[in-house]
């Protein structure tokens, strides 16, 4: 008996293979987008963890010198006083245009890192003499091997897979040569076993600051908001995919009512039927889910390099550009596919189990369920209000997302009611019987289409919202770059002395030389980068202040005031007039706040004389050069020749801007990719819904046809109806999208990155999107319309003969 029932159930899919394909595609899309995002997140997080383990990051307290590098002599003094510390020298190394990080550790004193242990336990351990003495050895990942092997003048290379990407690990003695920083130490780590009595730091090395392990910059924490963003997108795509599943399963159930009635009449219990249908759905969910995983894997593989690039650009987070299949996201993807399938078909299943054995096989009963649009709309309003309340009451990034989710879900729920009100208005003003029929027919179709339209609304709103955010950001960012990167040339000298020489050499030839000096301070709010600048009209005219007090620049150059970046201002709620304690001894009034989209950390600017007072050792190797733009290229070359500077040491403003924009674009590649995919999924949802409705169209169209409308007229009306509903939805999506954009710019961004962006509107983009929607709706309606055109009149006539 069971086998017979299974055969009967399966026969439906054989007869409706397009429907089966739709269902599987819907499931695969939902699962694929979701698991792609999960895979990307999992890969990135695994990269952070690996890096933290591989480099023993954040496991030890550290000693830093706020004024710059620590001299070797200081290390020896600490050691000879009993302090068990290990020296680390790190810095960037450019190899064939690619920026790599060199981590030089004292291989004698530093705790054995996994890469070192792995190498020692290998079949051919390297000779310590080679590791520690000139030329030394570089440990790096297999990925970097070809790059480094092609570069002459580097020490021999050893390969380890226990290292983060883009990292070269070596002994500190090799690193100081490679980085041209002889005798310098970036920081010291404090080893776990200290002798019983050692003199306090304040008496032996008062200039050093101890940074506890847990306060060190945690990549995972820093990038949390980025991943939350991605997850939210993944969830949105998943939800939209589920609309397709819902539509298809609903249709399949409706079409099988006759068969189910027959089966029940033959004596199959409802219980058995429900179980078998659930088993059938599970099989479909697993097949669709596996397809989705394959899709997600390739999608993630395609997107990950860009994600990795933006994570590196934004946070300096080491992320490998290669995806690997990890059980956690594969399992979560399958679980989501199963859960999603049952969520999407639960309602249909429930209604099926309640179906009276002799109820008519018509579709009307299935459809009328969605009619309580007023109640649904009320629920939508509650969701919107709830989201706003969550933000007002709790604040923070998660509350921000709750608000966005409430806004989106709530608006989607309100949509059917809103559309039906609009249609009533049109119907009232309609003239003539055909127009009236069209409007009322549209209203009648609304319940069946509403889910697809909701999906469309969400996709459109997300598109408008995210598009507005990205474009606003781009506009602001470009403007900010123009303000911020004012100097035509940026020069980095090899040493303070060379810096002086270069400044002297340049002085008679250029308009102004603007030294850029900075130190990293351990501040109560996290690491604080303190910059010093001189008095120059460039700053007075161009610096991007978003909030300032009176005579800001005069007070600043008096040495009585400080400027801070927006991130610090928002995080610590410090605004002009407030006091900032740069160090416990140095407190200054805040005169202004400037925008800063370059990094997520706190930053402050003081006058050069103040900087000398606060951090006397700050290096003076970098400066900006103001010169007529047409002379910049020649001067850059002259500088390189005169002082034998490497190419990267003299950067032209244009190149720097291009590089910054590149990082920016990569940051949003993934966002836009997901955006477009979501819209595609929504278009597909409309198609499936229209196909669903198709079977019930005949009884409604046949009488109209019988009254004299031709099939081609009816087909046109079909398309028109689909397009009209889509346009109405798009119009409603516009304010929702703008609200979303506002939430992203003013709430999510502030919480995630620490900056608030002005919102710009881009009506041309909306028109483009509207066009895209029209196209999607037309394409979706074209298939049923074409069927109608080719429908033999006999079929239409049959409606009147058919018992249903």
């Amino acid at each position, binding site marked *: 008996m069971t086998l017979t029932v299974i055969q009967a159930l399966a026969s439906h899919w054989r007869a409706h293979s397009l429907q089966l394909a739709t269902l599987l595609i819907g499931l695969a899309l939902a699962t694929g987008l979701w698991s792609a995002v999960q895979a990307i997140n999992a890969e990135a997080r695994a990269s952070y963890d690996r890096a933290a383990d591989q480099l023993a990051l954040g496991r030890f307290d550290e000693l830093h010198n706020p004024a710059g590098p620590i001299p070797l002599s200081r290390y020896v003094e600490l050691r000879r006083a009993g302090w068990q510390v290990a020296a680390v020298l790190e810095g960037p190394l450019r190899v064939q245009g690619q920026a790599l990080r060199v981590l030089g550790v004292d*291989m004698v004193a530093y705790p054995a890192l996994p890469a070192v242990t792995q190498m020692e336990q290998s079949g051919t351990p390297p000779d310590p003499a080679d590791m520690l003495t000139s030329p030394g050895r570089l440990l790096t990942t297999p990925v970097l091997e070809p790059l480094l092997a092609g570069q002459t003048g580097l020490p021999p290379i050893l390969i380890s897979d226990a290292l983060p990407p883009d990292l070269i690990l070596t002994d500190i003695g090799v690193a100081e040569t490679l980085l041209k920083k002889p005798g310098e130490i970036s920081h010291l780590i404090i080893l776990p076993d200290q002798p019983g009595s050692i003199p306090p730091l304040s008496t032996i090395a008062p200039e050093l600051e101890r940074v506890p392990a847990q306060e060190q910059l945690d990549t995972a924490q820093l990038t949390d908001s980025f991943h939350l963003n991605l997850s939210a997108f993944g969830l949105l795509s998943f939800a939209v995919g589920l609309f397709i599943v819902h539509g298809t399963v609903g249709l399949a159930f409706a079409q099988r009512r006759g068969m189910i009635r027959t089966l029940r009449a033959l004596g199959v219990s409802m219980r058995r039927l429900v179980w078998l249908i659930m088993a059938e759905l599970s099989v479909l969910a697993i097949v669709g889910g596996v397809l989705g995983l394959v899709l997600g894997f390739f999608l993630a593989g395609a997107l990950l390099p860009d994600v990795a690039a933006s994570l590196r650009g934004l946070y300096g987070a080491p992320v490998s550009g290669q995806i690997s299949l990890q059980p956690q996201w594969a399992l979560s993807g399958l679980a989501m596919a199963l859960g999603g399938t049952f969520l999407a078909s639960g309602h249909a299943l429930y209604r099926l189990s309640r179906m009276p054995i002799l109820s008519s096989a018509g579709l009307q009963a299935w459809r009328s369920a969605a009619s309580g649009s007023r109640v649904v709309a009320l629920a939508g309003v509650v969701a919107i209000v709830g989201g706003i309340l969550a933000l007002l009451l709790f604040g923070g990034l998660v509350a921000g997302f709750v608000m966005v989710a409430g806004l989106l879900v709530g608006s989607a729920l309100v949509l059917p009611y809103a559309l039906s009100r609009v249609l009533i208005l049109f119907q009232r003003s309609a003239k003539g019987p055909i127009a009236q029929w069209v409007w009322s027919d549209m209203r009648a179709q609304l319940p069946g289409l509403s889910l697809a339209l909701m999906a469309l609304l969400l996709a459109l709103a997300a598109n408008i919202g995210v598009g507005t955010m990205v474009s606003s950001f781009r506009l602001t960012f470009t403007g900010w770059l123009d303000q911020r990167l004012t100097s035509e040339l940026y020069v980095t000298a090899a040493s303070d002395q060379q810096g002086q020489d270069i400044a002297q050499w340049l002085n008679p030839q250029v308009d102004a030389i603007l030294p850029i000096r900075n130190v990293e301070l351990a501040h109560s709010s996290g690491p604080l980068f303190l910059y010093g600048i001189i008095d120059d009209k460039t700053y007075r005219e161009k610096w991007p202040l978003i909030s300032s007090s009176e005579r800001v620049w005069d007070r600043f150059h008096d040495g009585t005031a400080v400027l801070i970046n927006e991130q610090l201002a928002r995080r610590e709620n410090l605004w002009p007039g407030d006091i900032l304690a740069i160090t416990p001894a140095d407190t200054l009034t805040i005169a202004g706040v400037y925008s800063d989209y370059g990094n997520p950390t706190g930053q402050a600017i003081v006058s050069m004389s103040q900087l000398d007072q606060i951090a006397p050792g700050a290096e003076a190797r970098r400066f900006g050069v103001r010169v007529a733009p047409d002379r910049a290229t020649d001067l850059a070359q002259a500088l390189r020749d005169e002082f034998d500077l490497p190419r990267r040491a003299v950067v032209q403003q244009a190149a720097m801007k291009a590089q910054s924009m590149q990082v920016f674009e990569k940051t949003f590649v993934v966002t836009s990719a997901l955006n477009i995919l979501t819209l595609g999924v929504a278009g597909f949802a409309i198609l499936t819904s229209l196909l669903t409705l198709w079977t019930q169209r005949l009884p409604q169209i046949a009488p109209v046809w019988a009254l004299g409308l031709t099939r081609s007229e009816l087909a046109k009306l079909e398309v028109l109806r689909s397009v009209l509903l889509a346009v109405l939805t798009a119009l409603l999506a516009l304010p929702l999208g703008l609200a979303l954009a506002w939430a992203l710019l003013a709430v999510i961004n502030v919480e995630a990155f620490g900056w608030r962006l002005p919102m710009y509107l881009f009506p041309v983009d909306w028109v483009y999107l509207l066009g895209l929607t029209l196209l999607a709706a037309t394409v979706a309606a074209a298939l049923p319309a074409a069927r109608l055109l080719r429908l033999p009149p006999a079929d239409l006539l049959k409606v009147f003969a058919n018992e249903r």
Partner: protein
Amino acid sequence: MNVRIWLLILLLAVPGIARAQGYAGLGGSAEGFTVPQPDYTFQFPQDHGPHPDYRIEWWYLTANLKSEDGRDYGIQWTLFRSALKPHEVEGWQSPQIWMGHSAVTTPDKHYFAERLSRGGIGQAGVTATPFEAWIDEWHMRGSDPNTVSLSANGADFGYDLKLQANGPFVFHGENGYSVKSGDGQASYYYSQPFYEVQGVLRLPDGDVAVTGQGWLDREWSSQPLAADQSGWDWFSLSFDDGDKMMAFRLRGERSDFTAATWIAADGTTTAIPNGSVAFEPLTTAPVAGRDVPVQWRVTLPTRDLDIEVSALTPDAWMATRLEYWEGPVQISGSHSGRGYLEMTGY
């Protein structure tokens, strides 16, 4: 202390390698390094300082101490030098690796610590005049090695001691040329076994004032073990009658190699050739997951010596990068006294 041949240990600069190779790895070749030759004339004070062109070298001090209430203690202070290449340069790229080991042994517990550094940056090293051997804050220093202050610290112990020699330096083997195998491997080896020691041990239960006798070994070489030698048992014994004896056994696959120096109370020495001293383990104790002989019978018929040597505490295990047993011993039998025992390769 010849056989503190250690040094490859120091190859430990990059930890793990020596462990993988084991003590058998100590029989490496001396390529590029100077090799000890017979008829060497020691030059002092220069020879108290380092010899970077030899592969390995150490300043190895042990002392048997007693507190005022009569409890026995032992301390160890060792600075090893291991050269990756036979020269010295300034800065991080120095091929000279230094390793410090220190320990305090009480009748019921063994405290130890280890330090590593490279040469060239001033974190560790030895100067001959004024004499100073140091790594981090640990030091042995004075105008010359006969009068020194000695200090070391671990996480849970430390000591500050004054040492005053009241006898001459003594030379092992043929005037300080100490042969280590039948194949002729050898080292330069001299000692100062006549230190009077006083000072303070810092232990978790509080400071303990102590006095006693100390013994310094100075040795350098480039090719310390024969290829088939896998470990050694080394004794420095001070008898109550004022005589002393240094004796060792190198355990080889084919045969053992033994040697000893009898040191009279006035400092005159007699070299005792291979095969004369007999070593017989009497009792083993489970230490650090292995069986280590902690009671020995040592006999030397020509001196009517037939003694039992037993560890003050069996648990004197140095769980350092290269592990070994080093601790104070009590002597009974034909002679009585105290001393130090080192055992490697178990």
